[in-house]
């Protein structure tokens, strides 16, 4: 189904929220208020928003590590303030401040993010199998980047999802980089979708800077999965405006990325592109757009306040060991 105006407002609002959260996280990392790493999502938020804004709460989500899944979770309708607290090591965090960005949010069916690129393909296969057996129309959204497509896990996961007809949407957020390495050096084909085609998975390419295009394509994929028609591979070609993670230089191969490249990328800012579109399509007025930005600011401020005012997690040894697989 093509998008309605209401869908477009939802997508635009989530895109603005994701952008505000992303900028806040970058700033907080630079201020030393986050623990662990932060992998900025700026420029690359449209795939997550487009893919997750129409998921149900029962659907399983494995978010992409860029932006640490905030984009994906808020689009799925999850209050992300416990995650902002988590990243500050606070007791109110979704993993009680012990996980930073390698977290899970099981009450919202969000799993993921370990430090291993492409790790997700293994549990995603299991969740897909369970979803198929449950027969309730549950869908698994598997988000990853082009770097993950170089791992054996990805190939095995795709293979199993194909031969078992699992209700999985594989969303490749292809920004053309694995840290510094260009995708063109790391893969024989620039379109990761080609690999999935080889495994007989219906595959589609979409402009990953265009949140509406991503949503329409992913909705078609979700529809297939819910009807029991098996997995789909959606490749969203996107852009990474910032360094891979804060603290590392932003390189293309061995050289810093050029100013010209940043300038050209800025012309394809997903929020600006979407703003032009909602105005041109008569979906939103400038006043309503301003209001959405104001509301996003308030939401982010509230999440930051919640994190700042929450106590630091100080578990006893007994509490700490209660959550590990092999306590002493």
């Amino acid at each position, binding site marked *: *189904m*093509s*998008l*309605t*105006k209401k*869908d*477009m407002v939802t997508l635009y609002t989530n895109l603005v929220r994701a952008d505000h959260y992303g900028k806040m996280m970058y700033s907080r990392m630079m201020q030393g208020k986050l623990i662990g790493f932060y992998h900025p999502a700026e420029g690359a938020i449209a795939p997550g928003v487009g893919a997750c804004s129409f998921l149900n709460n029962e659907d399983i989500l494995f978010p992409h590590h860029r932006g640490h899944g905030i984009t994906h979770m808020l689009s799925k309708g999850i209050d992300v303030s416990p995650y902002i607290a988590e990243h500050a090591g606070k007791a109110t965090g979704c993993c009680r401040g012990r996980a930073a960005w390698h977290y899970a949010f099981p009450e919202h069916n969000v799993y993921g993010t370990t430090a291993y690129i492409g790790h997700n393909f293994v549990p995603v296969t299991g969740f897909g199998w369970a979803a198929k057996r449950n027969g309730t129309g549950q869908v698994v959204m598997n988000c990853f980047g082009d770097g993950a497509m170089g791992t054996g896990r990805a190939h095995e996961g795709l293979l199993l999802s194909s031969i078992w007809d699992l209700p999985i949407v594989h969303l490749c957020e292809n920004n*053309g980089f694995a840290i510094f390495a260009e995708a*063109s050096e790391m893969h024989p*084909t*620039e*379109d990761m*979708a*080609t690999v999935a*085609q080889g495994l007989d998975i*219906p*595959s*589609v*390419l*979409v*402009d990953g800077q*265009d949140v*509406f*295009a991503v*949503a*329409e*394509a992913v909705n*078609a*994929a979700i529809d*297939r999965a819910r009807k029991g028609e098996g997995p*789909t591979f959606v490749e969203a*070609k996107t852009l990474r405006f910032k360094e891979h993670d804060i603290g590392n230089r932003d390189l293309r191969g061995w050289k810093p990325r050029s100013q*010209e*490249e940043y300038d*050209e990328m800025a*012309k*394809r800012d997903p929020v600006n592109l979407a703003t032009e*579109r909602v105005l*041109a*399509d*008569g*979906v939103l007025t400038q006043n309503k757009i301003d209001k959405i930005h104001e509301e996003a600011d308030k939401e982010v401020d509230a999440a930051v306040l919640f994190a700042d005012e929450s106590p630091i997690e100080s578990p006893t040894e007994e509490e700490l060991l209660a959550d590990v697989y092999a306590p002493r």
Partner: protein
Amino acid sequence: MKPVGIVANPASGKDIRRLIASGTVVGNREKCSIVVRALFAMDSLGVERAVIMPDPSHIAERVIKQAQNRLETLDVEILPLPYLVGTARDTERSVCRMREMGCSSIIVMGGDGTSRIAAKHSGDVPLIPVSTGTNNVFPQMIEGTLVGLAAGALATQVVTATEVCERAPRLELYRDGQLADIALVDLAVVSSADSAARAVWEEDTIRELFLTHASPTNIGLSAIGGHLPDVDLEKGDCLHVVLGESDQKLTVPLAPGLMKTLSVRRYRTYETGHEIRVESLPAMVALDGEREFAVRKDEDITVKASTHGPRVVQIEKALKLATRRAFSCTGQGSKSACA
């Protein structure tokens, strides 16, 4: 000798119609192979220079890697563009640059949408549109070798553009009296909220249709005109179809394998130059099957067909004429043998 330009759209043949219909997937590997075959054919005719559009998928680099050690006369270059954006803008800039370079022809590989972008900027440079898209009416589904032979015949001046090219018709869209955009095959007025994934596949969103081509052998929007009785479009004519509640039903292929039933309220053929006012506003306008932009209710939107479309090489005509001139005969005594 003038160079031959080559534009291969890396994004064609991969859109949402792979999911909502059963569209063929055309991978970039195949696009590389088509270009390589065209280059070998050109090389055999003594073409000296070809320039290929660069793109983020590196089709040009891969083609050169495959072909360079097997070419004798042909020097293949990548068109220098300052920065690639991975959108239709790359095609626009490349075609403009190829026109400035005085290319003898430009091979355009993609769908109707790619041809449309090229046609907006090609001026008098002949186009050789080759289908690597989904519902293609304007570009031909033709072997790359033959494409190369036709381009080679023009570059080596065995045939001239005047002899083998025809101006294609086009649809011109005017916003408040100003030419705003063009389409080569179809212009649809649809009720979708946005351009989003661009393709048009939901029959109940189509309000009006303007066509330069109408044939039951087509797939896509122009198939609607093709399935109407008593429609015989002359070159440059425009068929205007208004859809909506009606007893007149048509079942047509809107995309590969996607048969849809539509209700046609009325239709009429107009001659070249006749201006037709769009009735169903506000709406989204789709050009050659791709949703492009929104138009408001208070805008004055008109459409007319014209014969000012791009110059297009008639491949069969070019090859027959070139063959009569013995262009493929080589070696001592071959001319007489061919004659």
